């Protein structure tokens, strides 16, 4: 009995090492929306996102945010029109929150539930697939958020009187590092 108690106490003493609270910071990111129109395709990319992850207990909470006006498509007129269409002056940030288990799952495909605040709407995306890979201390996450205009009550902008497609998938490439 005393041996069993000893094992329990041993595991108990190791637990703080495994579950120690840790933080992650987003060191590099590329967020890119893809817009499709019968005449042309447009990609708008932001490298201005910032993010933080806090692990404690059984979960890690991640927050990623980017200013709406940091998305650049290569055409200033189109970018201004995008900001107008998504009410980017009224709601200047796109904010994504997600929770992962602690410790973070191993490399490979991970699935996450996302809470996205954008264009004045809160939208939940469940079971979004991301690819995770580790390089030294850094963690790379890539994936695509299957966003649509209708999710965020955005009137699809039109060009030459033809509206863009409803789907505006957002490709995500992020590099996280423990803080």
């Amino acid at each position: 009995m005393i041996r069993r108690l000893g094992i329990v106490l041993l595991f108990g003493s190791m637990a703080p090492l495994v579950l120690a609270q840790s933080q992650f910071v987003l060191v590099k990111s590329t967020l890119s929306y893809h817009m499709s129109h019968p005449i042309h395709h447009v990609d708008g990319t932001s490298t201005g996102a910032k993010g933080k992850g806090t692990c404690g207990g059984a979960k890690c909470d991640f927050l990623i945010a980017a200013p709406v006006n940091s998305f650049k498509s290569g055409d200033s007129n189109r970018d201004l029109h995008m900001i107008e269409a998504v009410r980017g002056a009224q709601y200047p940030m796109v904010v994504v929150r997600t929770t992962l288990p602690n410790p973070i799952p191993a490399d490979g495909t991970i699935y996450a539930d996302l809470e996205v605040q954008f264009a004045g709407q809160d939208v939940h995306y469940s079971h979004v697939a991301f690819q995770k890979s580790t390089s030294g201390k850094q963690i790379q996450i890539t994936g695509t958020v299957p966003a649509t205009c209708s999710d965020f009550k955005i009137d699809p902008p039109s060009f030459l009187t033809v509206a863009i497609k409803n789907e505006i998938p957002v490709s995500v490439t992020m590099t996280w590092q423990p803080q």
Partner: protein
Amino acid sequence: MRNLLFSRLIPSLFLISAPFAVAAQNVAMVSLPDAPEAQQQQTTPQPNSSSSQQTQPAHPPDLSDLGFSPQQTKADPQLQARLDKRTHMLKVHQRLGLITLAPMAAALFTGGMAKGEDREGQTFHAPSDANLDFHAALGGLTAAMYFTTAWYAIDAPRIAGTHHRGPIRFHEALAFIHGPGMIATPILGIMAYRQEQNGERVHGAASAHGAVAGITVAAYAASMLAVSWPPKFLHRH
């Protein structure tokens, strides 16, 4: 002694099992179909009986933790209103610009019919009044619609701090060709019209009417292509 051991051990076992229950919920939320079984087990927190602090989740990060400036995160309803007005005016600009293309093309097409026949060795034949009037009317309509279209772009609110880049610069630069062209073409057209009405051959600056009109239409069409650049077939995704 035995009772004491049980009384200490059993609550400890409950403390151990609690994180497993939390972990089970997490595994249901985040599944790893491609990950090996052993890795999936890593999502299970280790038993914790010694520290209640470790089982409590850390405070989730807040937007204020990320270091964005208040200017970046603050809503600006006035800017939104300016953007709304700008978009509205540019949409009208775009629509009117498309519609203007119709009388412009028709004026270019009827230009040939409004031209007097002036072959070498033959007597000059002035165009019919109907052809001339029809062409002049189309030209007048084109000019009126063109300047209305231009006004919607000129009067659209400017957004401070915006650096123009991309195809829109080409679109705007071409206005310096088709803009003066749309002023010169009707003036030269009126001069040519008067000369032909007098039974004269079109001469002097008026003889450049057709060429100026052609350059103007070409620049206008290029300007429309510029805003739809790059076309879909050239897009590298």
